[in-house]
């Protein structure tokens, strides 16, 4: 015996209450008289108070007990088993955006998928169940588990296929977990997957077509200049021509390019951006003409903000070798503005982001600092031990270099690079600040003439640029995470999606916010909420998520096929009360209460 609502047993408290009431119930019917003194005094009993009598099984007592038990029955819902046999369809619906590809009749695969699945749900009985899972990087339940078919159909009507590229396996695995009790597994997609277990039914509703579309669109702003790079790919069919146009926000065509597309070969088109556009402005690149998959035929591209790193190289007496080496390396780093103190004196053009010097002085507020200092270690030829994965040492290899002047003994900070007992590079971390100590005597070393030297300085500038407040690349494919650094004084970020939904993300100690992959294509506003020291900024920056993906545009292998498996009719689904099970105890309770009322009235008459 299983109780649906164990708390319903509390209604049983009415049973002893009823018995107590009947034990002390006065059983003498009231009778008004005028001459009480004429009745024999020996036949009278005292009427004051109540006393316990022998329990008499009167009709009212029985009816009241039946009513209480019926109410308990209704409230606690006793039943023998919590599951019973019924059909249970667990359907995985492919929600990748390529389900929007249309067939020759102009009907999208998503529409056909919805109709096909709706027919399956329509065939289910009232007591059967359905679970709908929509695929995605993280599959989610569209309806259920084990929902009524009507609810599942309503949820299916709201379903949209607009997800970026993802694998169907997680969704199928989730479905298989839910379907462990003998449910029927069905996959609805636009084609048969490469591998599908035999116990999973398939409803494929795709139509093969040759497509072409954008696979990448970016606005580059770097040392090589400013340009908009667009890659176009044709898939399937014969070579064909398509026109790629560049429009501004007002729809004015800025440039047009005729492309001859070979199937399977991506073409790169470069456009010079229109002059005078501010950071955050956008242009649209679009392929004209008809296509079976139109989702990737157009994309907006946001102009990124140029982020320049101001580097101050401190003055040093004489012609310090380290200074010459640093300035030479900085000259090759794009978007690094060097403020040479020897030339500009103390009047810097702005607060430096990075200070390089030899003095043991603290870095200015908010700036990073690299101190080049000679140590006591003898020259070494390696081997050099580098901290793996540190951005400063990315692609830096000093093999073959002679490094003299390393630090012997303990140093302040984390060691990033060492050779033998000598510490060559160390780092101290503070919120939003990094301090590096480079131990080396350059005249006695060859490191400044080694290819690793400019890489080290370039990595330092690049790391500093990435730590500057702002968005590194505003144009992102759907699902790709990115990092946004907040201005000083802010500790959280709100992202308002194109659908108006907002998400709040908290920054780490360096003010960096890891933005997870965006789920909806379009512009996402980045908002800085107000803090105790700083006001709110409503439109601080913008992230533009695009759904461009060559895999999504591939509908060459789409097909319409159905694969049935032996229809199950014995899924163990959660029991629910039928109308009769609902009403029977209620009716019994009502009838018993009515009978109790009648019986009581008769007994008291």
């Amino acid at each position, binding site marked *: 015996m299983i109780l649906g609502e164990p708390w319903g047993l509390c209604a049983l408290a009415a049973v002893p209450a009823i018995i107590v009431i009947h034990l002390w119930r006065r059983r003498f019917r009231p*009778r008004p*008289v005028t001459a009480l003194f004429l009745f024999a005094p020996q036949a009278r009993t005292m009427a004051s108070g109540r006393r316990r009598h022998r329990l008499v099984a009167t009709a009212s007592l029985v009816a009241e007990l039946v009513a209480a038990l019926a109410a308990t029955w209704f409230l606690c819902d006793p039943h023998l088993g919590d599951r019973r046999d019924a059909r249970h369809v667990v359907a995985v619906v492919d929600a990748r955006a390529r389900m929007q590809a249309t067939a020759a009749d102009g009907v999208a695969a998503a529409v056909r998928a919805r109709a096909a699945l709706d027919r399956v749900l329509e065939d289910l009985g009232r007591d059967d169940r359905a679970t709908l899972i929509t695929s995605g990087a993280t599959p989610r339940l569209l309806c259920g588990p084990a929902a009524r078919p009507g609810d599942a159909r309503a949820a299916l009507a709201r379903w949209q296929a607009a997800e970026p590229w993802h694998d169907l396996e997680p969704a199928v695995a989730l479905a298989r977990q839910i379907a462990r009790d003998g449910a029927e597994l069905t996959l609805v997609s636009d084609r048969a997957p490469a591998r599908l277990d035999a116990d999973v039914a398939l409803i494929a509703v795709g139509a093969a077509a040759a497509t072409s579309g954008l696979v990448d669109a970016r606005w580059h702003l770097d040392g090589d200049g400013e340009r908009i790079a667009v890659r176009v790919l044709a898939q399937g069919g014969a070579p064909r021509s398509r026109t790629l146009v560049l429009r501004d926000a007002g729809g004015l065509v800025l440039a047009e390019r005729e492309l001859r597309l070979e199937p399977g070969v991506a073409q790169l088109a470069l456009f010079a951006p229109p002059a005078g556009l501010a950071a955050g402005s956008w242009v649209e690149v679009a392929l004209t003409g008809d296509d079976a998959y139109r989702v990737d035929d157009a994309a907006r591209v946001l102009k990124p903000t140029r982020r320049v790193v101001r580097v101050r190289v401190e003055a040093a007496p004489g012609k310090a070798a380290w200074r010459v080496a640093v300035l030479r390396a900085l000259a090759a780093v794009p978007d690094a503005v060097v403020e040479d103190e020897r030339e500009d004196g103390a009047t810097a053009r702005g607060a430096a982001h990075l200070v390089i010097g030899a003095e043991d002085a603290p870095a200015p507020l908010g700036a990073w600092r690299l101190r080049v200092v000679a140590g006591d270690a003898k020259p070494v030829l390696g081997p050099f031990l580098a901290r793996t994965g540190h951005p400063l040492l990315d692609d830096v290899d000093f093999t073959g270099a002679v490094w003299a002047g390393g630090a012997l003994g303990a140093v302040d900070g984390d060691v990033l690079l060492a050779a033998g007992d000598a510490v060559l590079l160390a780092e101290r971390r503070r919120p939003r600040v990094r301090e590096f100590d480079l131990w080396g005597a350059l005249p006695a070393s060859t490191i400044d003439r080694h290819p690793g030297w400019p890489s080290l300085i370039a990595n330092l500038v690049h790391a500093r640029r990435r730590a500057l407040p702002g968005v590194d690349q505003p144009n992102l494919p759907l699902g790709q995470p990115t990092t946004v650094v907040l201005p000083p004084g802010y500790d959280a970020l709100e992202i308002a999606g194109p659908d108006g939904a907002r998400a709040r993300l908290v920054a780490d100690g360096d003010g960096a916010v890891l933005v997870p992959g965006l789920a909806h294509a379009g512009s996402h506003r980045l908002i800085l909420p107000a803090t105790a020291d700083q006001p709110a900024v409503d439109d601080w920056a913008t992230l533009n998520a695009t759904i461009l993906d060559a895999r999504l545009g591939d509908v060459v292998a789409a097909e319409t096929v159905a694969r049935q498996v032996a229809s199950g009719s014995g899924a163990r689904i959660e029991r629910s009360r039928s109308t009769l099970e609902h009403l029977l105890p209620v009716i019994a309770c009502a009838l018993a209460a009515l009978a109790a009322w009648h019986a009581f009235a008769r007994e008291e008459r």
Partner: protein
Amino acid sequence: MPEFDANAVAAAARRVRLAVDPRRRRHGAGNRLGSGPGASLEFHDHRPYVAGDDLRHLDWGVYGRSEQLVLRRHRVEVTPRVEILLDASMSMAIRPEKLGLATAIAALIATLAEADGARAHLWSFAGSPRRLAGQWREELRALKPAGAAGLEQPVAQLAAGAERVLISDGLCPAGGAHVARTLGHGAGRLCLVQVLCRDEADPQPLGAVRLEDVEGGAADLVLDAAACALYRERFARHQGEWQRALAGRGTGVVAVVAEDGFEAALAALARGGVVSARAA
């Protein structure tokens, strides 16, 4: 409030008249002959003259025949007074028909008294005794039963020699003798029109009941045949006490049953001598 049929009372008043004992009529000058000597034209008797008598009343015929100074006396003319004491305690309201019949009988007797030239004084015993004023019909209709004492309360303003009619169920724990002593003092005649419900005179077995006296008190009782017989026996003793208390003072106890209606009560009143049929 009591409900009674005023038309039935008026119709009954045309058919019957109040049976009044002329010997008891001695109250003031009126249009009915009294029992004592007075100033009417009706001869009463002779008596010897004594100094101071009014010489106008000397029977000169007798003096001429016998030279005896004899005073001729005439019957007195009186206006009889009827006092109707209506019990309006809670016991009279146990059934609407009981209070209705009692009120109707009170109205009938008052009407008959007035029609007969008598002065009718109505007293209600709802709570404390109160005389109903000239508009006694309206006051009877507006009567609200109250209290438990009923007729067991003395009334100072009752007139000596008046015809006194008690209308009650007579179920007073103190007994009829006490009431007759209290309210019958100085009365010319005293009778009890006893209005009872049927089960008050003849209860039937009801099983286990809680008897709740409308005037206070309650008792749990198994009302079986034996208990009913015991009640009847005690009721008969109670009635006997009433009859003994009223013996020789008029018509005695006239019992009427509320459920039988006004006409049956009228017949009982006629049988009991409270009223008599008018001559055609």
